[in-house]
């Protein structure tokens, strides 16, 4: 596994300039998690509307490039989407990282697909799997909170 496959341009970009960072206004749900191994932290805020759509979401956190990029990519991918989409994409993502499975959901744009699969290199680095999946697990706990 080449390092440049793990640290792709997209990941470095999201890691350095994470999107949707901060606490979004009027959030209805939130959840946080941390990785005791390395001290990575993530806190996800989201605003669910009546139609069970994520109207807005954001995150606060600190950590490695992989964990920040993953959280940032997550916010871009699920913003404005409904819960059924979110559950599927989240399952797909975790399956891709943990079990080296392909993304099956077909409603992603080619751009979204490229972005989300940029993290697939993590598959080859078992000690880094949690860095990539933590934000996605946290998103699901935030949703389940209410």
């Amino acid at each position: 596994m080449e390092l440049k496959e793990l640290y792709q341009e997209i990941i470095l970009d999201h890691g350095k300039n994470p999107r949707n960072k901060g606490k979004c206004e009027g959030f209805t749900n939130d959840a946080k998690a941390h990785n005791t191994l390395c001290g990575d932290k993530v806190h996800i805020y989201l605003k669910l509307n009546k139609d069970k759509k994520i109207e807005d979401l954001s995150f606060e956190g600190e950590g490695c490039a992989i964990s920040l990029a993953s959280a940032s990519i997550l916010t871009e991918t699920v913003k404005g989407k409904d819960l059924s989409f979110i559950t599927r994409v989240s399952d797909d993502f975790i399956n891709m990282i943990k079990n080296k499975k392909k993304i099956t959901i077909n409603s992603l744009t080619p751009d979204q697909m490229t972005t989300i699969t940029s993290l697939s290199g993590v598959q080859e680095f078992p000690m880094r799997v949690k860095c990539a999946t933590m934000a996605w697990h946290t998103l699901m706990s935030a949703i389940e909170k209410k």
Partner: protein
Amino acid sequence: MEIKNIKKEFPIFKQKINGKPLVYLDSANSSQKPKVVIDKISNFYETEFSNVGRSVHTLAVKATNRFEAVRDKVKQYINAKHREEIIFTKGATEGINLVASSFGKKYINKGDEILVTELEHHSNYVPWHYLRSEKGAVIKFAQVNSDGDVEIDEIKKQITNKTKIIAITHISNVTGAVLPITKIVDLAKERNIPVLIDGTQGAPHSHIDMQKIGCDFYAISCHKMYGPNGLGILYMKKKWVDDLPPYQGGGGMIDEVKQDNITFAEEHTKFEAGTMQTAEVVSFAEALNFIEEIGIKNIASHENEVLEYGLEKLRKNNSVNIIGSPKNRGSVLCFTIKDIHPHDIATILDEDGVAIRAGHHCCQILHDKLGIAATARASIGVYNDKEDMDILSESIKNCQKVFQV
């Protein structure tokens, strides 16, 4: 034995990691094992193994003699006065838990103070926390200064007439600070306060003489001293061995067991409940022989030379920030690289065969104080050399290249 060719004594270095020679810079976490230790473990299991201190058959006698001979060996190595002062544990962590539990049970009451430092590993803080939550004891932290040292005056300042025990690290596993333990013990003696030293990082890198240090308790981690995993040694001054209640209950630590009462064994035996590690204890003698053959002072000066070389090399890189600048530094080099998280550093270094640790190194209190969540740590053992530092330095540059910073 020559340090120059010492890597040959460690079979682990025969392999390549990611196609590169292994540069093992994680000895503060756990050291690699020389062949003599590995061989002793299998040889003991093949020829002499039995449980110790129980049966009377031939193998039991052989194993027991072998086991107890190591107690004498350790006594001599650390210059303890009595063999009963040597207690085998499953690690330095258990040694500290033992003291916190047994000493705490008898001597710690509500409002009593336990003095630790901000440098402590979680294993020299969490066990004392139990006494805080169960007995209402107070834990006081001697502060670390901007160099990453804890000065004797700071310790002096924190001692009050409520201080019941001082528990301090010998060498910090993050800043590398070597604490003035002898001075601290002298200071404590004036006030009649017992001192526990967490020697996890101290013992592998320094000459430890219990008579010179004069502490009451000294906890050792054998797997950081080229010895086997799952073994620790707690040195406990005789007066405490006689005075403190047992730690865990079980076989081997009793005198008489009746339905309505139990009396306990005396001396170290009361602290060694259940079947003890046997091959581990037996093989640890080989680790001590290995250290003695080279000489701990030679090991320390070699490691220091490598460390100083590495520090100088890394200081030349403007993006590298070295954590702490203590007056005396043990074999630990913690650093951060501008705009690269330590976890990413560790992954990239690994691709070059360089094994380091990244994280808070079980020292969250210290990292909070430093205002950083994590650091990268290169730690040095007898098998490291200047070339390893060159490779580390180049690999750090590679991190910067990958991250384009």
